């Protein structure tokens, strides 16, 4: 075991576990459990990198207030590191994230500004940009546009995968900011261009896409689609079904975006796309804890539960 000076040092070096029961014949699936990070998600890596970068640039001073648009995990991760380093934090959060995310942010004493559900994460970006423009004292790291986000995945997530699975042949991760896929995928391909990278994209119900004008779409500036070999959308029902199989067959209590990513890994594990014998690394962004209130793990008709889930931002 290891001894660290404070919580911000305990980020990363997460375990990679095999999925022997959910691996299609001829393929080996491995899940990197980012839920083992200090605040329980992959975003601990990003939050630490964002704050380190802002400190190195001289943008943060004792008592500074950090502002960030987030659907939850980045906010919780920033809350921990800001607490440890003496900064205040305001997050802009869409009103339709899971209850646990809001409660955790409240527990950390974070100042929460909500953005309209029908605008999703794009709305939280819009509101945060307006606030940052109006108040120059706010320091906005902006995970969607900050190169420190993909960079930390290249220097930590990817190198950890290569250390644990040197002959990994493919990567599957969820698409949110694009930081995990861009940073990890690019580094894995630099090491061996024959590797393939696939994105699992959450597909929501009409409420989430609701009134969104197609011309106002938001593609995060840090996301480099060139790194991808495929992008597959996964609806709430499929994500939920695989999340439940992880629990029932592998004993892994993971969040819904993990179920979505494993669903995609199983779909691409076919000779048409990947040579037989390929080892596929899958990023599990978080555990199931923050989604208990959604009913995702309760007994009951999965179809009805998925119907309820589809308007909550579960990734």
């Amino acid at each position, binding site marked *: 075991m290891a001894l660290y000076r404070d919580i911000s040092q305990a980020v990363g070096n997460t375990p990679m576990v095999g999925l022997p029961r959910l691996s299609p014949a001829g393929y080996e699936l491995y899940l990197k459990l980012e839920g083992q990070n200090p605040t329980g998600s992959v975003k601990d890596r990003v939050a630490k990198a964002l704050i380190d970068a802002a400190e190195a640039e001289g943008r943060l001073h004792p008592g500074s207030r950090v502002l960030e648009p987030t*659907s939850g995990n980045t906010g919780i991760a920033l809350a921990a590191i800001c607490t440890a380093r003496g900064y205040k934090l305001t997050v802009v959060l869409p009103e339709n994230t899971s209850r646990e995310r809001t409660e955790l942010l409240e527990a950390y004493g974070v100042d929460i500004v909500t953005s309209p559900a029908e605008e999703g994460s*794009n709305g939280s970006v819009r509101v945060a940009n307006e606030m940052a423009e109006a108040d120059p004292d706010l320091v906005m790291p902006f995970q969607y546009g900050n190169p420190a986000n993909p960079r930390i995945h290249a220097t930590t997530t990817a190198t950890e995968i290569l250390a644990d699975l040197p002959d990994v042949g493919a990567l599957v991760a969820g698409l949110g900011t694009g930081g995990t896929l861009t940073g990890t995928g690019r580094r894995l391909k630099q090491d061996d261009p024959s590797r393939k990278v696939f994105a699992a994209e959450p597909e929501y119900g009409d409420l989430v896409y*609701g009134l969104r004008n197609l011309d106002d779409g938001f593609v995060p500036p840090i996301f480099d689609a060139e790194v991808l070999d495929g992008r597959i959308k996964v609806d709430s029902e499929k994500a939920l079904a695989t999340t439940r199989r992880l629990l029932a067959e592998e004993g892994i209590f993971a969040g819904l975006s993990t179920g979505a990513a494993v669903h995609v890994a199983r779909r691409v594990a076919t000779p048409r796309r990947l040579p037989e014998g390929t080892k596929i690394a899958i990023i599990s962004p978080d555990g199931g804890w923050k989604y208990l209130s959604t009913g995702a793990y309760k007994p009951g008709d999965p179809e009805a539960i998925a119907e309820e889930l589809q308007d909550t931002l579960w*990734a």
Partner: protein
Amino acid sequence: MSIEVRVPTVLRTHTDGEKRVTVEGATLAEAIDDLESRYPGLGERLRDEEGKLARFVNVYVNDEDVRFLGGEQTELADGDQIAILPAVAGG
């Protein structure tokens, strides 16, 4: 040949509120052209001034983003499903 298209809320003004419509076409380009002829203005919304798929619109065939398949030349088979979704970020 029958292809189902999931239409996002903002474009349902073109389809009398229908969430799913049916088109025909051997490729995505033909399907979008057919969509435009059946629901004038709808196919147009998916393309930019140069006639390419618009940047903030994601088009999927059987859940796969067509940018990583054959783009508008992606071949379609009977029963395939097309979905049109606005780009959404997370994090």
